[in-house]
């Protein structure tokens, strides 16, 4: 596992601690990539058990907050996330984890690992969990502006995810739009509708926002701008619902206590964001290797979970599955 130790709100301290946690509980060899002397100091603070396998790989450049992620390719090819990506390409590592800029990780992946044959750009796929456990959404934020053919690739990636991780044999795919009619949506969405309709996939048409949680579709396809806004809104619902109900019950302390108990122990709404934390972010689908993106605010436990989850993705052969699915649709380079 190549870990970008310089990326993330709490890097490198929490990244190093998370890597140590993962190495201690799991059979995984970890390469911490970043400024070598800083990482060695952080590593020295941690208690490593016998048999833990963690190495430091030096990276001579660091991406600063105000730098454009696109600059990674030309100006900083030796920054931590780029070096980690090159380790995937060379076969030194099986997966990459970064809690840094998603764009920088995606750009490094595109340039230094490469995409699966025919795929234009990577996408983030994720399950909606709690309210819609059998629904995945793609793209959750990797592609703000999308070309029509990307929606088809998203649908295929979402289908592989639904089959592999949710055990849905023939996932229903829908395009998120402003109406169910074929004519609704932006130019790209309307063009994508035609591509999906003629794809041979189990495409059930457009759905609207009100259908996201009702199970009409197992795979909801949208561009990364819409997906990211929706995901963050969705993750915030539980917490706000709890606050709102508690305020309404201000005059009834016993009921308020019950609500708190329900929300904290039983009711799943507030667990939406915790589930995401537990999963430790998402995989960049379409890259010819496993690239795991952890939340920027990840602390050691989330980093450890993300490492575990990336390891599971390697074991599950998600890249190989995606390749074989894509091969069926990629005749003529349509993706």
């Amino acid at each position: 596992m190549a870990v970008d130790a310089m990326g993330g709100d709490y890097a490198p301290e929490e990244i190093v601690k998370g890597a140590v946690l993962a190495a201690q509980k799991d059979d995984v060899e970890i390469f911490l990539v970043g400024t070598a002397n800083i990482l060695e100091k952080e590593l020295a603070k941690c208690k490593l058990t016998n048999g833990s396998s963690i190495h430091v790989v030096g990276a001579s450049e660091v991406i600063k907050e105000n730098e454009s992620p696109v600059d990674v390719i030309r100006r900083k090819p030796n920054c931590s996330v780029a070096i980690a990506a090159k380790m995937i390409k060379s076969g030194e590592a099986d997966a990459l984890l970064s809690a840094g800029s998603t764009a920088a990780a995606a750009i490094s992946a595109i340039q230094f690992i490469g995409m699966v044959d025919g795929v234009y750009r990577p996408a983030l796929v994720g399950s909606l969990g709690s309210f819609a456990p059998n629904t995945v959404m793609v793209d959750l934020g990797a592609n703000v502006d999308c070309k029509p053919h990307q929606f088809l690739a998203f649908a295929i990636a979402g289908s592989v995810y639904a089959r592999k991780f949710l055990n849905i044999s023939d996932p229903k795919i829908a395009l998120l739009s402003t109406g169910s009619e074929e004519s609704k949506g932006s130019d790209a969405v309307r063009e994508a509708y035609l591509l999906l309709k003629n794809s041979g996939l189990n495409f059930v048409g457009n759905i609207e926002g009100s259908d996201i949680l009702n199970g009409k579709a197992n795979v909801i396809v949208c561009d990364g701008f819409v997906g990211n806004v929706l995901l963050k809104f969705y993750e915030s619902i539980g917490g706000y619902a709890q606050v709102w109900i508690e305020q309404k019950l201000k005059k009834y302390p016993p009921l308020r206590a019950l609500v708190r108990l329900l929300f904290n122990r039983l009711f799943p709404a507030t667990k939406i964001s915790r589930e995401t934390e537990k999963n430790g972010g998402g995989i960049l689908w379409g890259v010819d290797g496993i690239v795991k993106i952890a939340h920027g605010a990840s602390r050691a436990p989330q980093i450890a979970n993300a490492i575990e989850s990336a390891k599971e993705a390697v074991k599950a052969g998600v890249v190989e599955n995606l390749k074989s699915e894509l091969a069926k649709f990629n005749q003529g380079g349509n993706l």
Partner: protein
Amino acid sequence: MTVEEQVRDIVAKITRVDKSIITRQSTFKEIKADSLDVVQALVAVEETFGIEIPDEEAQKFQNFGDFVSYVESRVAQEEKV
């Protein structure tokens, strides 16, 4: 294959557009190339021709023709050397 044809192939492959629609007058916006497409094209051209394109030069490219003209001049310089 001319320099222009090679650059056109690179840009078409990266942006996924039909190369027949890329003319010397085409802007990057017209061929729906975003900033990442442009940087990938620059890197690919640099690698193909063994040249370096400084950012300040790349920022002057108004259209595909400007890009090609710059690469043609650099390739000619390299050949002289």
